[in-house]
Structure formats: C-alpha cells, structure tokens
C-alpha cells in the first residue's frame, strides 16, 4: 500500500518517529509543510535554559581563576575549589541543555523542523570536548540555530558563526590582526610577544560550513579571510571586556584587533572597513554555487541516502540558488522529490535518531530522572560532542557496528521495562511502522516471553533501526 508507506516515511524519515498518542497524518506531504507554520523556536523544554548572557560571565570567571592559578602562584586551595565549583556548574549547564534538547524532540508538535534543527546544529558543530565551549553548545543551538532553520541560509550562517560558542570553539578570540592597533601597542612594549592570526574559524567556514572541502579555495584565501575576521569577539570575555559596548555574551566587534586594509578572497576584493568586511565575505560565501551544492548534498544525504542521487542534489542546489538560500523552499523541493519517498529505508538511524524515536514510540515525554547525555554517550553519540568541527557522520558505516547494536538492545530493554504491559507491542508496531512492518518482525514480537521483551524487540527491529 503506497499511501501507507508515505505515512511511515513522513513519520520516521522526515520526522523523529511516530508517537502512539498523536494522530497519524492523513496527507503525508502536506502535513510536513504545515509544520513550518507551527514551529516554535523556543519551545517549553528550552524555556528555563540559561542563555549565553548568563553563561559568559561564568566562563570569564573560570578563565580568570585559571590565570590566577598560573605556575608562579603557589597552590591556593580557596581559588582551586572555586574553580572546581565553576567547572561543576558549567558541566551542569551542558547536562541540562542536552536534556532540554531531548525533551524538546520528544514533545515537539513539529518533528520535521526539529530534525532540521538537529541537522543544522550538526552542520555548524561545536564540540563540548573543548571545555570552554561545553556550556555554550546548548545556547548555540537555542540562540543561533533554532531561530533561523526556517529562514535564509545567510542569516543562519551569520548567527552560527558570530555566536560565542563558535567563536570560542574555533579560537576566534585568539585571532588578532598582526598590524592591528592593539598588537602594535603590545609589541611596542613587549617585542618578544608574538600575537597574530588564528585561521581556525576562517578555514572551517570555508571547508565545512559553506563552500565545502576541495571546492577551489586556496590557503591564501583562508589567510585573507582570517584577516577579515579579526576583531570578531564576544562581549564580556577577556581583558578587552571593560571597553565592550554590547551586553555580555553578545557579539562584539573589537575594532582595535582588526587587521586594517583591503582583502582579496576567491578573486574578489573587499575594501570594507571593520566589521562590515567579514560580513560581506560571508554574504558572498552564502550565495556561492559551491555552497548550494554542498548544502544540497548534505541535506540529500540526511534524508535520502548515504550516497545521495546526483539528480536530486542538482535539483536541491538549483532551488537553493534560485531562491537566494531560502531554506523552506529547499525543504519543499526535498518533500516534492520522489527519491525521498522510496519505500525502502536507506538510512540507518544514528544513536540520537534511534533514542529519540524509541522514547517517542513508547509514548514517553521524560527521562525518568536519567540524563540524556550519559545515555547517548553509552550509544556512542553524546550530544554536541562529535570531537571535530565536521560534526557527526551521517552515514550508516559510522553507526552500524556490533557493539553499538548490542547497546541499543540493552537500552531498549531498559526503556521497555518502564512500560511493561502498559503498551501492547503487537498493536504499537502497526501504529509506529504503518505499511512497513514485516511479517517476520510481527511474528517475533507476538512470540516474545513478556510484554516488555516484545516492546524491546520492536525498538530494535530492522524496520525500527532504519528510517
């Protein structure tokens, strides 16, 4: 029954998995588009989360304490314990934000858009193994990603790059113009100090966030872009904070750190002064054809297949270009693509996908006193911790592994234990996998030794491991 498969695809491939307590959509494609008008950038699950404005002063305090602990200062126990408690607070911020992210995914009335939030958050990845970025990963998603997933790519790009999480993660605060006023002053006093560019942010914007790797830019382009970016900073952080004009945690342009002069990037000259220079570069990068292809490829890979069909990528890239990076237009083109509705599920769920869909499938909206981050760490995908700015892989080869499968089974057993016989797995399976459930899985579920085992089997069934 093709119509029934469409429903399963809308729920599982585009969405985050069916919930037994929600009505099944009638018209699969239209139901997806309709989510755009109902999406909430700041849903209840996130409401109580602290933003960058609250967190940046604490990070600044921790960095101040770290400086005070420099080798020449003999071990001062009081300062040390203050530092430990600051670290504890920041770790608690991370745990709470990861919980908010999961609860939002369980609760959302717009699971397709929520999936896009996760997609873009991973595209503009910050990784919490960099300690200073850890408490800001949640605010990055909340403040930079969520408000712009249904907007223009350029706005999303600008929000993601200027956010303090990205600037701290990619070392932007260390990058200063070698000929800037501030560096000239410092070097006049202390000639032995070498201050200069850090190319990290510039390189990852080109390689990961916009044009894509091997798309034709050179090392000279990276360096020039890094020069254009100098002066970008975060209000309320570091020694320059006293002169900041923006509220703590906001973007601050520190003109004294900006490398003066005209820049040439990808053959184009940028003669803007100050802050406007890097913004002009980002504007051009957002509109570059290579960016359209890069984004189209990643979206098609996420929704259709590990190796996306070239024709689909071309159509999505075309829409991206013609619409000026209007993201809903690109999403509509994806929904209209027949390739996205192929009945055979080509995508193996990531641990995040699987956990979210399993909890949703059981009708749960909470974690029963557990935290999301350790659960996902056991499965191999702790939130916002891909370990590199490239984000987590979006292909089966990275996730379909023996031990990972075993852990899903163990976790399915634990999730199912919360329900026991309160849910009948036999009926639930038909509900969650309409038109997709195979006779073999149906049989194994019916034969399970207990209602909880039957639920666990449903959650690890081949149809449930893929989308």
């Amino acid at each position, binding site marked *: 029954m093709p119509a029934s498969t469409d429903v399963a695809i809308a729920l599982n491939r585009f969405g985050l998995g069916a919930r037994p307590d929600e009505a099944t959509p009638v018209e699969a494609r239209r139901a997806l588009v309709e989510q755009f008008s109902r999406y909430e950038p700041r849903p209840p699950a996130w409401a109580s989360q602290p933003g960058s404005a609250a967190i940046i002063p604490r990070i600044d305090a921790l960095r101040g304490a770290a400086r005070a602990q420099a080798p020449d200062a003999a071990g001062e126990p009081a300062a040390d314990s203050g530092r430990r408690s600051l670290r504890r607070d920041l770790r608690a911020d991370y745990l709470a934000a990861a919980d908010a992210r999961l609860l939002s995914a369980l609760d959302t009335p717009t699971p397709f858009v929520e999936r896009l939030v996760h997609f873009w958050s991973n595209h503009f990845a910050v990784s919490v193994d960099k300690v200073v970025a850890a408490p800001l990963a949640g605010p990055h998603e909340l403040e930079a990603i969520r408000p712009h997933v249904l907007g223009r790519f350029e706005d999303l790009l600008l929000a993601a790059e200027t956010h303090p999480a990205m600037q701290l993660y990619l070392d932007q605060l260390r990058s200063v113009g070698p000929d800037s006023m501030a560096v000239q002053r410092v070097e006049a006093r202390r000639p032995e100090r070498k201050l200069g560019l850090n190319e990290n942010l510039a390189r990852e914007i080109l390689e990961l966030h916009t044009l894509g790797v091997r798309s034709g830019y050179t090392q000279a382009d990276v360096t020039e872009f890094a020069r254009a970016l100098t002066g970008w900073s975060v209000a309320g952080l570091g020694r320059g904070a006293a002169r900041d004009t923006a509220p703590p945690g906001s973007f601050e342009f520190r003109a004294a750190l900006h490398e003066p002069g005209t820049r040439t990037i990808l053959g184009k000259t940028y003669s803007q002064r100050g802050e406007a220079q890097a913004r002009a570069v980002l504007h051009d990068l957002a509109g570059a054809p290579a960016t359209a292809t890069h984004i189209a490829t990643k979206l098609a890979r996420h929704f259709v297949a590990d190796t996306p069909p070239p024709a689909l990528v071309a159509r999505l890239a075309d829409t991206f270009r013609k619409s000026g990076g209007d993201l809903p237009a690109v999403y509509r083109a994806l929904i209209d693509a027949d390739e996205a509705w192929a009945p055979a599920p080509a995508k*193996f769920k990531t641990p995040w996908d699987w956990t979210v869909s399993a909890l949703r499938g059981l009708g749960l909206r909470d974690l*029963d006193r*557990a935290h999301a981050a350790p659960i996902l760490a*056991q499965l191999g995908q702790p939130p916002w911790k891909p370990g590199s700015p490239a984000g987590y892989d979006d292909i*089966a080869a990275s996730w*379909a*592994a*023996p*031990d990972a*499968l*075993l*852990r899903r*089974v*163990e*976790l399915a*057993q*634990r999730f199912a*234990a*919360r*329900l*026991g*016989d*309160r849910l*009948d797995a036999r009926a639930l399976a038909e509900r969650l996998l309409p038109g997709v459930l*195979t006779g*073999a*899985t149906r049989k*194994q579920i019916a*034969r*399970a*030794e*207990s*209602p*909880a*085992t*039957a639920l*666990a*089997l449903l959650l*690890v*069934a*081949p149809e449930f*491991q893929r989308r």
Partner: protein
Amino acid sequence: MPTRRKILHALNLGGGALLLRPRLLFAAPGRGRRRFVFIIQRGAADGLAIVPPLGDPAYAGLRGALVPEGAVKLDAMFALHPALAETAKMYAAREALFVQAVASPYRERSHFDGQNVLETGGGAPYTLKDGWLNRLAALLPDDGEHAIAFAATVPLALRGKAAVTSYAPSALPQASDDLLTRVGMLYAGDAQLHALWDSALAAQALAGDAGGRRDAASLGATAASFLLRPDGPRIAMIETGGWDTHSGQNGRLAAQLKSLDALLAALKAGMGAQWADTVVLVATEFGRTAAANGTGGTDHGTGAAAMLVGGAVQGGRVIADWPGLARGALLDGRDLKPTLALDNLIAGAVAACFALEPARTADALFAQAGAARPLEGLVTRT
C-alpha cells in the same frame, strides 16, 4: 502401574500439609518482622529441569540430553538442578521447599496472557486490573511504608489501590540471553544486521556470563537492604526474565539458575537474622513441554514448579501430587498435568507469613478465580 502416583513429600507435617486449617481467626498483625518477596520468572521456566523428577520412569526418555547432569537428589522422586547450589543448601537446612505440577488457572500457552493471570490472580486473562500482591498489601495495616518493586516500573502483580513504590538500579542491565536469542531471530533475514549481530554475540561470549550473576547478587543485596530496615517494606517483588528456553536450553537455563541462586543467596546473606522471618516465592506463568523439542529446548507447557525459600518456610521437602509423565498422564498428550493450584500455595504461604486468616486471605486475593483452598503448614506462624 497406577496411572497416577500420589506422592506427598512433607517431612514435617506429612499429608496434613494439604488440609485446610480453618480455625485461625483473621487477625490484624502488628508491624512485625515478617517479609514476603515474590520473584517472578517471566517466560515459563522449565520446572521439569529445575526440579527434575528423576524417579519418574518416563522422564529420561522424554528429555534425553536435557536431563540435567549432577542434579542434587532431594528425595526418592525429585532432584534439584545443579546450578542451584546455594538453594540446595537452604533445602538441606529446611529453609526451602519445592512444589511440582503446580499452575495458575490459565490453561492456554501465551506468555502475555499467562503472566496476566499469574499477576492479577484472576481466573482468566484481563478480567482484573489489579494484582494479588497489591491486594495482599491492602490487607496489612497501612503504616505508611509501602510495598516495593525492584524494577523500573511497578509490575502488574503489585498494581492496585494500595500505595506501592519502585526502585531500579541505574546501571544498564545486561540484555538477557533470551532477548539476545530473539534479536538474532529478528535479524535472521537482514543481511547487514545479521552479520553485525553475529559478531556482537561472539564478543559477548568472550566476555562470559559472570556479569549476569554479579547483577543478580547485587540486586539481592539491594533488596535486602530495603527489607531489613525496621520500618522497611514488608512486601517486595523482583522480576526475572529469560526463562523461555525454546533452544539451547542446557546452557541458558544453567546461567539463568545461577543468577537466581546468586539472588537468593544474596537475599539470605543480606537479611541476616531476619532471614528467619522471610518468605520468598519463586513462580512462573506456566511450565514447559514434557518432551524435549528438536532444537535442544522445550516449548510452552502447563504444569510448572514453584519454590518457597526463607527462614520462615517449613522447608526440606517437595510438595507434589505427582501425576506422572506416562503418555496417558500428560495434559493434551504433551504437558505435565497440573495437580496443585498456585493460588492455594500463595494464599497459604502469605496468610501464614503475615498471620492472616487463610480463608479470608484466599478470598481477598483469588476470589475472582474461584474459591482457593489455602495450603496449610508451608510457613511457620509468628
């Protein structure tokens, strides 16, 4: 040869064990030291391997390679599976008794439905919404301390009007062998998952099964630590799964029983002196086929084995109205015929444990299933 041999193994009370003792009055007990624990075996544990009737002439022929080697002789007819080494010591110390050919009123062979009857105490599946263990809790004075389930959620047997709490250790439990086997069957037709799963199981086998036993022992110790408090819960329930041994029964059942044995031993050790006031019931939804199947296992049956363990148990005996395993004696030509009602066993054990009047207890717990006749003399009265 008689078609049905009656064997009443009751070292202390002889045949009197099966008689009603209606003279006791219903009495509300004080706070008391008595504790009752129900360990449910989900998946139909094979009573014919756990308490093998080695003295039955048909047994070896039916079971073949599934006859446990090195079983500990309990009496002229029955033995105990060798994996239950600590439980065997409790039997020798008269702190454990085994019941054979016992069953709930359920006579079909669905796990879901059978467990529903076992836990509700109803006469048929889905006729009751609450569990007999909760109704038992309601018979005890409400002094604020609730019955407890050592599980993520409250199992059906403990659900109902009386307030109940639950406690689950936070560590990720190992998947049971049963679940692993079923997942293997689930992936049989999926090339990618099938290959991954095979290598996962190979790695798992290298790690050994010591983890399961460790988990069971720590669960027993945890349960005891709750029950031991002077104001602790008087009623507890512990869930065990993995008893559905359709294939590879010898190895899997031995591992299951080692875990159960570790759980019981840890409970005993943890309860200390109060073990003398403790009664543990181990029961399953139904038994397994009298004969081995073609895959080294057994299929869903009817008559099962149950255990009562604890210092308050009048142990050291096997209670059975043994129907025998001769072809004509089997239920539907395949299952051990149940000759003892599990409801009677439970009603008698809990009434004595908490000094309740047996008939009224039976009524409160199992009236919907029909008049239970509580077995007397299973447990010492306080």
